[in-house]
């Protein structure tokens, strides 16, 4: 503290201590902030086609959806960005939980957190680990991950979930 260099060192060292405490407080308080996102995933149409990949025939589903979501309440002071995805979840004979991401997006600002998308087609391929979906029911929900500046990732999913059945394949494989 006697010279300028010593004072500068003390001030910066103390600032580092305080900023860690400050960000710790921010990280602790963030999960208690209220949020009430509204999400609606409406499945318009599902078509299942069979494809022949060199001898192994498998079913691939094509989904057309409408998505309406208001995620602005997830943007608090500690939200860097949101990762949102539409996930199809179903129980098959071989596995109890199957989750397949059909569509996803990264939302970087509160302005973009109000999503209205019509006639949305699945971005990623939709097939089961088994060759066939066997006409079971699947649920379609919007999942979100709120990535904070400091603290833990917070995840959630839409509450109202509708069950939609896979149709029969539209073509039979040759």
């Amino acid at each position: 503290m006697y010279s300028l260099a010593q004072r500068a060192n003390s001030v910066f060292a103390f600032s580092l201590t305080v900023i860690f405490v400050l960000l710790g407080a921010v990280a602790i308080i963030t999960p208690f902030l209220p949020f009430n996102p509204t999400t609606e995933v409406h499945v318009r149409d599902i078509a299942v086609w069979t494809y022949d990949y060199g001898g192994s025939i498998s079913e691939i589903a094509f989904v057309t959806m409408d998505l309406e979501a208001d995620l602005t309440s997830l943007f608090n002071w500690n939200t860097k960005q949101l990762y949102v995805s539409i996930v199809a979840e179903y129980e098959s004979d071989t596995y109890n939980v199957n989750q397949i991401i059909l569509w996803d997006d990264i939302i970087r600002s509160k302005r973009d957190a109000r999503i209205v998308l019509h006639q949305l087609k699945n971005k990623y391929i939709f097939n089961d680990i088994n060759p066939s979906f066997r006409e079971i029911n699947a649920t379609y929900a919007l999942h979100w991950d709120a990535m904070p500046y400091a603290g833990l990732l917070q995840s959630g999913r839409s509450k109202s979930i509708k069950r939609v059945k896979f149709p029969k394949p539209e073509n039979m494989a040759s």
Partner: protein
Amino acid sequence: MSWLQMNIDFEGQKLAEVIYYVVIISGAILGFAVGFIYQDLLLTMEIFAGGIGLSALLVFPSWPLYNKHPVRWLPAKQVTEASDDEG
């Protein structure tokens, strides 16, 4: 280069330490409160950085306030016989 050292006395050091403690901590608390109210973490960081800048301005230069109690040395002893004065 001694002007760049900006030395201050002992009482000044104590005062400078208290000043930067108070300024940085209140900057953090104020930043937390304002950032929470406006839900803007960048605002928190700006206010916190402002606290650091203010404390640097207050504490880094050797302001006259920090040199009000200069160390008074004992008067130099009259050295009479070099060998006896070892102590």
